[in-house]
């Protein structure tokens, strides 16, 4: 058993695939969803604003404290570096003096 000719089968298929009417609920639900999407945005209530402010304050305070700590660390590091440089300068100066004295003594013995 077969469909003859092919056009007959295609015609049957075309009839079978006629558009279906959409359910009446489709448009109603769609318009409801669209309406909800267009509602003006609700402003946050007092406690939500307070919580947001506290969270923001905590973040900013944490950032400030961390920055302060970093600066103090850098300052201490710089002071230590300067101390080492000063010590090196003093040592270098003492060695130079000792070198000069040794050179003078050598010349006297000659």
């Amino acid at each position: 058993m077969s469909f003859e000719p092919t056009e007959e089968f295609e015609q049957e298929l075309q009839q079978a695939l006629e558009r279906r009417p959409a359910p009446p609920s489709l448009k109603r639900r769609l318009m409801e969803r669209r309406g909800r999407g267009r509602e003006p945005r609700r402003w946050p209530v007092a406690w939500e604003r307070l919580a947001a402010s506290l969270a923001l304050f905590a973040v900013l305070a944490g950032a400030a404290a961390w920055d302060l700590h970093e600066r103090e660390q850098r300052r201490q590091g710089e002071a230590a570096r300067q101390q080492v440089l000063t010590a090196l300068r003093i040592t270098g100066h003492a060695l130079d003096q000792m070198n000069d004295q040794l050179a003078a003594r050598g010349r006297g013995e000659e």
Partner: protein
Amino acid sequence: MAHEWQPQFEQLVDEHQSMVFSLALRMTGDRGLAEEIAQDVFLEMDRHLGRIESAEHARFWLRRVTMSRSADALRRRRVRFFDLFVEIEEHHGAAAEERSSPLGARLEHLLTTLPEAQRAVLVLRYQEDLTPEEIAATLEAPLATVKSNLQRGLKLLRAKAEGSLKEFIRKKEWVREL
């Protein structure tokens, strides 16, 4: 680019809801899911309404997005053939049987058992009466692939129909002989 066409959203829904719903229904085989997809597609169109330039562009856009969203929905649900078959029996088949032609109802049912790519081109060809070139543009697929899927889908559907409709055809011929 400025354009003159100023569509009313509600008017577009009235005009195209049947097309969008039918495409989604035939791709997914689930009335509830088809309705959900149709709503999503229209809401998406509402957000892009300013970019739609003409009535023809709106129709093309709706077809393309509906097919795409239906494919996404099927992928998400990972419906296996058996599940889809059972679902169609429950949701789609019942409605199909309300139609006047039992052969048409059977064909519509068998269509939903085809592979997704073949089903998509057959639905666009025979529901929407699109040419292979228009189908290729809608599905953003190569024309050769569309033509191949059309041929294969039609052949497979015909084979399935011939297998399952022998009794119906015999009755039809018997009626014709009378």
